[in-house]
């Protein structure tokens, strides 16, 4: 008989092992150029983490929120001030507290979700985006009265060891992202995630089963903001290496929203797929522009083309595959598996199709 409950199936453990080997051993061995770490892998991990935050509130709990970048800014500036003013906390401690500070903002700006929903909630949550950025700009204390507007982020020091090379920073981001991703998966698969999805799918029935709408929604906003806050701190300290409120503008919020939707609402791995796509696609377009057309196309046109394609993709996915690229990936795996099994390769069983 199958065990009634297991947190992780064998498949999950294999997936995790493959990801770990790939990211810890293979990538550092084969990729030596700094560009890959500083411009692709590090922002990818940071933004994927923020996208998980967006997933929790939007994909799992069904609350249309738009303001991830605001919470990222809160996390980033909290981190800067904590390292500056409370050096005893250390990097990891500051990171956690920054996340908690962002979570407090999440609770505050999640409260409208109790009264309004859908597009109105989206507008209400925009307040977080503008309020947090405004607050940081308005009160000099947050920037330590730096007049230049751009503050250099402090060096990352963990247990007395500096983490300043791109590779070291990549490992910092990787460690944080891995841990938080595993925690998110545990929540999503456990009773916490079921409460979120129950509220998303039918709130009145959820309430009749004893799921508190207030607690569940506020909890989702808080956890979401925590993820965004930590992601924002990493984004500022490992990727930008500077702090400026402008870096966390509404455009970044939209980017994270696109990553969430293209990756697939209500999936954790979709966050990584979506983030990779949105980050790599412009790189690919630039490469095509430079190598195929040899720079004949202006860079501004390329970036416009990029916007057009993103827009089109959003529409196409919303209509034909609301579950996004994560679902496409699942389908692909499924079809490969059934092809392999029908061609008689031993050891691979095609999944039993349910009625």
């Amino acid at each position: 008989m199958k065990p009634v409950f297991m947190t992780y199936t064998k498949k999950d453990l294999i997936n995790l092992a493959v990801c770990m080997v790939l990211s810890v051993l293979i990538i550092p061995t084969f990729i030596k150029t700094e560009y890959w770490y500083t411009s692709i892998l590090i922002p990818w991990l940071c933004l994927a983490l923020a996208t998980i935050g967006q997933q929790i509130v939007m994909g799992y709990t069904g609350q249309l929120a738009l303001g991830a970048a605001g919470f990222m800014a809160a996390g980033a500036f909290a981190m800067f001030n904590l390292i500056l003013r409370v050096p005893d906390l250390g990097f990891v401690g500051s990171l956690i507290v920054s996340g908690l500070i962002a979570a407090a903002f999440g609770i505050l700006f999640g409260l409208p979700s109790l009264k309004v929903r859908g597009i109105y909630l989206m507008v209400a949550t925009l307040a977080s985006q503008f309020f947090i950025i405004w607050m940081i700009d308005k009160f000099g204390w947050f920037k330590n009265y730096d007049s230049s507007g751009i503050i250099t982020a402090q060096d990352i020091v963990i247990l007395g060891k500096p983490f300043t090379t791109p590779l070291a920073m990549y490992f910092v981001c990787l460690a944080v992202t891995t841990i938080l991703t595993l925690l998110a998966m545990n929540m999503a698969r456990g009773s916490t995630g079921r409460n979120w999805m129950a509220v998303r799918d039918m709130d009145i029935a959820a309430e009749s089963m004893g799921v508190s709408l207030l607690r569940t929604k506020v909890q989702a906003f808080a956890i979401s903001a925590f993820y965004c806050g930590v992601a924002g701190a990493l984004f500022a300290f490992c990727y930008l290496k500077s702090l400026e409120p402008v870096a966390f503008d509404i455009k970044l919020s939209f980017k994270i929203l696109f990553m969430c939707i293209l990756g697939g609402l209500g999936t954790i791995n979709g966050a990584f797929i979506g983030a990779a796509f949105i980050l790599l696609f412009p790189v690919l377009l630039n490469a095509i522009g430079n190598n195929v057309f040899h720079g004949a196309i202006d860079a501004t046109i390329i970036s416009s083309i990029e916007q057009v394609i993103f827009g089109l993709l959003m529409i196409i996915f919303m209509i034909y595959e609301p579950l996004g690229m994560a679902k496409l990936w699942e389908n692909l795996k499924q079809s490969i598996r059934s092809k392999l099994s029908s061609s008689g390769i031993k050891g691979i069983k095609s999944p039993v199709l349910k009625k």
Partner: protein
Amino acid sequence: MAYERKFKIGKPILEVNNISLAFGGVKAITDTSFNVLEHEVRAIIGPNGAGKSSMLNCINGIYKPQQGTVSFRGQVVPNITPNIMAQMGLSRTFQNLALFKRMSVLDNILVGRKLHTKTNFLEVALQLPKVKKEEKLNRERSEEIISFLEIEDIKDTPVGKLPYGLQKKVELGRALATDSSIILLDEPMAGMNVEEKRDMCRFILKVNDELGTTMVLIEHDMGVVMDISDRVVVLDYGKVIGDGTPDEIMANQKVIDAYLGVEH
């Protein structure tokens, strides 16, 4: 009934006292009172628009009646909300299906175990041993309900993809998973064929018989109602026009008039 009941019908578990509900100027329920005894199967019947579903929504706290109270085990419940009623041990199904469409059958039923889940999100995130233990117990109970309802083969299917009759079964399963002492069923057999109805009746009676769960159901099929319920309350235009055993109801002239129409 000829057989001996394991759970003897007892004191009133639920009392509806003088409830009046209006939407704007439209009166849905007017000064209605009735009670439900512990361990009984109680049916609420009445023509379309008689206020039956509104009544359940008042009991469950989805609607706030302008007048009247609901008592649970002899105590008036102040500020009724669906959540408070769930905690007191009252569960329900909905007329137009209120399942979690994108979740699997098993997950839907597991949500019904919510009030038996005491671990918080942090403990779940860290997968502490007590979370695993609790999840295991909840899953075992859910699997029991799934095999009781004979829906093992669809337990991993997203509910939205199931036909109507099966969805109704899943909804009953979710209500059962709460281990409530009283379950309100809003038209559990609407849109079902004879065979499905017979199955559903069997489940309702079996639950009532084996677990002693008090059942309150709204149903249109008179044959079914008269067969399975201990007592019936009849609503018409938001008022009680009959209350008693199936035999008494069938002999009640007012009820016959309401259903067949009467010449004035």
